[in-house]
């Protein structure tokens, strides 16, 4: 079978289909009945806080972990029964740059190509192609121990490409990189996506998902809490937040009631810090409304303002939204 990354072959079936996927480490349940479908030829970003199960999911897809229960199909191959089939379709670039620093970039790529099953000549060609594709020609014959962080990550990305995988798994591809390195990796990923390679990437950064992904899946505690095109998710949770604090703890509930009236969303309370906040759907105008109503009700506040939501708040908002879904499933 000879194909190209430019035009992936076969049925345009989903990249990944997971149902009820559960992975446990002793008492810890890392994936808890996770279900998701990744459409063909898309960039899917897996977003979630630390410990959400992102890396476990990637490692399970890469056949490095065996699920305790549930089903996982990767490009049509059953990951439990046909791990070898999965391995021929995927490329993995993990959280560390898994390249040998004592070898040159070219040597690393040729080695990985041979391990994908290429003969000597095809391996040399694949390495050459990938070096050009990722802009590493100039440093190709230097030992990659001398590379910059961005170059090393790109080489690692390249190593996952030399077997022309149909699905690329990128686990936090830019963690630990400086802004320049991050942009280099983004450009590379975009180029690959444009060429038709399916990509699953995990990230902590909303911005990264924004830059790269067609679809976003948010997971927490090993389950999917939100999924969809990024624009939709952003419209629902990416809003600014109005936050106030009061000097007298007794005033927190009345102040929160005002926030609730204006935004018609239940405010988040932090009683210890005497703070409350709500998403500001109406933007700054809503802040004005809150202030005038607080004055009318004679509730003095210590501090009030509008700010961007933190990633935590986005996750919380999504968790709150996912409640009805959870209930209907149960």
């Amino acid at each position: 079978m000879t194909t190209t990354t430019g035009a992936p072959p076969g049925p345009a079936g989903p990249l990944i289909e997971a149902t009820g996927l559960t992975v446990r480490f002793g008492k810890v349940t890392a994936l808890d009945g996770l279900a998701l479908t990744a459409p063909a030829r898309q960039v899917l970003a897996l977003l979630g806080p630390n410990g959400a199960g992102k890396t476990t999911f990637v490692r399970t897809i890469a056949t490095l972990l065996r699920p305790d229960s549930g089903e996982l199909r990767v490009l049509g191959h059953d990951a439990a029964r046909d791990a070898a089939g999965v391995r021929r379709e995927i490329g993995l670039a993990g959280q560390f740059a898994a390249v040998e620093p004592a070898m040159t970039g070219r040597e690393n790529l040729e080695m990985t190509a041979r391990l994908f099953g290429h003969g000597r000549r095809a391996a040399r060609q694949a390495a050459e192609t990938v070096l050009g594709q990722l802009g590493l020609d100039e440093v190709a014959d230097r030992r990659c121990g001398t590379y910059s962080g961005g170059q090393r990550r790109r080489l690692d990305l390249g190593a996952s490409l030399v077997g022309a995988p149909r699905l690329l798994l990128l686990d936090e591809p830019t963690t630990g990189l400086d802004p320049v390195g991050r942009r280099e990796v983004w450009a590379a990923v975009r180029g690959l996506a444009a060429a038709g390679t399916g990509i699953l990437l995990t990230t902590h950064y909303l911005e990264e998902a924004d830059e790269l992904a067609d679809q976003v899946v948010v997971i927490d505690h090993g389950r999917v809490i939100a999924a969809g095109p990024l624009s939709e998710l952003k419209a629902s949770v990416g809003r600014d937040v109005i936050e106030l604090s009061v000097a007298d703890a007794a005033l927190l509930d009345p102040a929160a009631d005002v926030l609730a009236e204006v935004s018609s969303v239940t405010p988040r309370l932090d009683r210890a810090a005497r703070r409350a906040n709500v998403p500001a759907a109406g933007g700054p105008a809503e802040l004005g409304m809150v202030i005038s109503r607080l004055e009318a009700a004679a509730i003095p506040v210590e501090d009030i303002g509008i700010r961007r939501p933190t990633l935590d708040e986005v996750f919380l908002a999504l968790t709150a939204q996912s409640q009805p879904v959870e209930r209907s499933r149960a």
Partner: protein
Amino acid sequence: MTMTGTISISRPAHAPGTAAAAGQVARRALLKYIRTPSLSIMSIVQAGMFLFSFRYVFGGAIHTGSVSYVDYLVPAYVATIVLFTGGGIAVAVAEDRAQGFTDRLLSLPVPRLSLVLGRTAADSSTNVWSILTTAALGFAFGFRLPGTAADALAAFGLCLVYAVVFTVVFIVMGLFAPNAQAAQGMSLIAFVFAFISSAYVPADSMPGWLQPFAKYQPITPMVDAVRALLTGSSTDVGLALAWSGLLLLVCTPIAVLRYRQA
């Protein structure tokens, strides 16, 4: 940086064979060793210091009967050199796991046996280098062959067998160590086997309660066999080979299984 949308890499028609994959794994480990000269230099320095200490510092206090201590010491040290250098193997294996290199290998369609075979082939080769340099140092410190060159060759061959066996043992240690430091620590257990044996002092000189361990653990018959071969006797080789075979038969499947579940 140029990005083109029309790259074409062919997809391999089939997964690599065990030998081809093992070759790549071995090549990488060897290149790393060769291109990090400090590794081989340190092992030579260490061997020199060890032989110096035992030959000139402790040696005078150790009684080995009719054999001079240097002739008692050097064959044993050459036979067990991998017990002293093998920590590096365990550390390298643990580092590969910690740094994602093993994950990369395992995500590729390579036969799991090839990971063990490749690593073993590479590290056994570097151990052959250790054996040769240690033997050369031994001669420099005054060791003289008691028998013929053919006897020496047979003894050398047996040392090579041990090198392979110990390599697999250290690979297993590296695969079970949670990190490189732990691998380094675990590999110290090899010192226990190296020293509580007939390698550096006659086991008879140890206290009675220690002698059973010293006499019946594998290192003693392995060292005794090398000494026997050097003098043209092959009577003691069977037990040493049996231990070698047993260790290989136990450790190789453990390593392969450990890679499978990694």
